[in-house]
């Protein structure tokens, strides 16, 4: 078995942040601490995880509009997805023959699994996390048309806005940015009101709403 790898993040970068949504509502998180958090990795090596973290932060940056992939824990989300059934292509028809150059209307027809696509793609990004932001953007522009980049972009959006039980959208930073409240059992009293005004109930994740430890798909076999 390979050595256990960890992603080390400062607590300040994933919790204890002030979050502004675009609708100017302010949320403050209490987890103010200077300690580091070691998150065990399921698929990535530590250096791969740092590259993914850096790239996801350019796709969905932390900037004046609010937090981004870094605060949301996107690399943690992607790591778990890749280690789970999706990463191993459990959800795809994988019998040959494969027609790698099929027209786009037939969808991805290749043989490589998401795990393989990431591992290959990351080989081309060695040292990416040590580049300056502009250099990182230039590097990503060069691979924009690749399947690897389109997966990375899609997975970054997933990691921003998934239910927190999947490892991303930590403290619901993504949902707060856009004013999405998460699962709500009832909107009956509000659905035909608030016309033309933002109605922004306080977000809550599925485990909070159901008070159950719902198991995410990546943990199922």
């Amino acid at each position, binding site marked *: 078995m390979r050595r256990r790898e960890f992603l080390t993040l400062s607590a300040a970068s994933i919790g204890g942040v002030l979050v502004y*949504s*675009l*609708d100017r509502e302010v949320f403050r998180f209490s987890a103010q601490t200077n300690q580091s958090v070691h998150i065990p990795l399921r698929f990535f090596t530590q250096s791969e995880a740092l590259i993914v973290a850096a790239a996801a932060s350019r*796709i969905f*940056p932390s*900037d004046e*509009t609010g937090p*981004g992939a870094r605060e949301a824990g996107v690399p943690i989300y992607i790591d778990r997805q890749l280690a789970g059934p999706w990463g191993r292509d*459990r*959800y*795809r*028809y994988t*019998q040959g*023959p494969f*027609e790698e150059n*099929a*027209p*786009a*209307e*037939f*969808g*991805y*027809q290749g043989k490589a699994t998401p795990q393989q696509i990431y591992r290959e793609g990351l080989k081309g990004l060695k040292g990416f996390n040590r580049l300056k932001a502009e250099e990182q*953007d230039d590097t990503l522009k060069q691979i924009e048309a690749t399947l690897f980049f389109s997966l990375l*972009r899609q997975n970054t*959006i*997933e990691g*921003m*806005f*998934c*239910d927190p*039980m*999947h490892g991303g959208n930590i403290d619901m930073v*993504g*949902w707060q*940015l*856009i*004013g*999405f409240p998460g*699962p*709500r*059992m*009832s*909107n*009956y009293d*509000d*659905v*035909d009101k*608030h*016309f*033309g*005004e*933002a*109605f922004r109930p306080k977000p809550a994740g*599925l485990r909070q709403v*159901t008070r*159950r430890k*719902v198991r*995410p*798909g990546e943990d199922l076999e």
Partner: protein
Amino acid sequence: MKTLPSVDVVIIGGGWTGLLMAKELGSRTALNVVVLERGGPRRTDDYNDDMDELDYTIRFRMMQDVSQETVTLRHDSSQRALPLRQHGSFLPGSGVGGAGEHWSAVCPRFLPDCFEVLSRTTEKYGSKRLPEDHAIQDWGITYDELEPHYTRADLLLGISGKAGNIRGQQIEGGNVFEGWRSAEYPTPPTKIPYFSSIFAEAAKTLGYHPYPVPAATTSRAYTNPDGISRPGCTYCGYCETFGCMIGAKSQPTNTLLPVIEKHKNVSIRTGAWVRRIVHDAAENKGSARGVIYIDANGQEVFQPAELIFLASWTLNNTRLLLLSGIGKAYNPGTRKGSLGRNLTHQVAFSAVTAFFEKPLNRFMGSGASGIMLSDLDGDLFDHSKLPFLRGGTLGARSARSLPISECGVVPKSVKSTWGSEWKKAALHYYDRTGRIGFSGEHLAYQDNYMDLDPVYKDHFGDPLLRLTLDWRENERKMADYMTTKAMELAREMGAKEVTPFSGLRSYDATRYQSSHVQGGAIMGSSPESSVVNPYLQHWQLSNLFVLGASSFPQNASANPTPTILALTYRTADAIVDRYLKNPAALA
């Protein structure tokens, strides 16, 4: 292979049609009925935990497992077909309840002339107006014959809406273009969220006749004629691709299963994957003897039966008939053979993506809550000077605006697809984006059909179903025309920026465009051009009935399930009233 004792009835598939037939036979006869469903058991409680976009919408938790079985596609018969390796343009269901669990529950009826498109179109415009390679057929049944059964389906599901035509009397506020109904909808329309309500205003200003979408996301608590009570919808927004956690959305498991479970003569075997229908078919006559399936433990089982219902949805209905060698496979070259012909999908797309100034609060709504209009449906507008036949509905549903799927959609003025500029726009527009959808008729063509794929196999080693399917000029021109109309509506709604649909080119298997796929085992008035008679009874094997949209000779613009249920009711009546007394051909 294990052979089980014979039963009276086997139903293959436990979705809307299979379970409706099971409920009818269970309640109205003493027949011993077995439902064979390849997927697992399900009930309302299973949906307590399902409000998770990632596992349910993005990873398709409730759909058929495509790693085991999918279909192949080619655009015309000169190409080699490729497998659809991931879910895309439609989403077949699996498990008790079938696709009826994760559906959106939009429940319109078909326009009366949809059942007679061939004769009505020829009458009005002459046969020269029909596309040269069309395969359009009349159904062999009329709207008037089906109306009482539509009403039963409305009552079963408790459909919410506003009638526009009760016995010929037009009623403002409902769909004034619809076929006559014998009664008002069982429940009042759903609440109308903001985005849909501004669509309604704009549509009225432009002279259209908007009306509330007929919805089986029922607007208030309802008890149906079987005594089944369901609560009203709470507009939670986790509707399409999810099961409803409170049972407000009518689904086979909350509407049919509780009745079935009361009847000791009906049993449901889950994990039972049917591979063949065994029969002794001669040229014109014969009978089905039973089915071979793989049970949940992987064992091969022969289940003999007197009467068999194939209810495994359009694609598997056609595939099981082909695999079992029942009937003559269609040959597009000679146009001989009827099995597999008239494959249609639906001309369904977001006609406009509109970006607004004000927030829309789009997380609230149900799969079917919204407003639509039928002014441009069917032949309700004159086509003599238009470059296409038939039409469809435009609508603004307030359904499913979940953030993974929707955040990141930005106006064309934003050039980037990642990075700070894009992010800023994505955050701003997430709740300021709405779509006007179009849902239009797809005509039948000689070269759009299904057969068995020569290369790709399922997990048992059986050939996959092969779809030969592409759009023609009629659909492309209809799409362009409707996109223009939708742009006018979006501007009238006050959209700041609008992105029109990019147009239909080749059939795109990656774009979801409704799960309304029909044909393959179509109904009609003769065995030469159809597989089943208008009672959905197989022309050759009179003890085999094929339920569902596989029987539609072509697509109608409207969502299919009320029509599917109405036809199933009609078949159940014919079985109980006639067939059981005299098991022979009904037509």
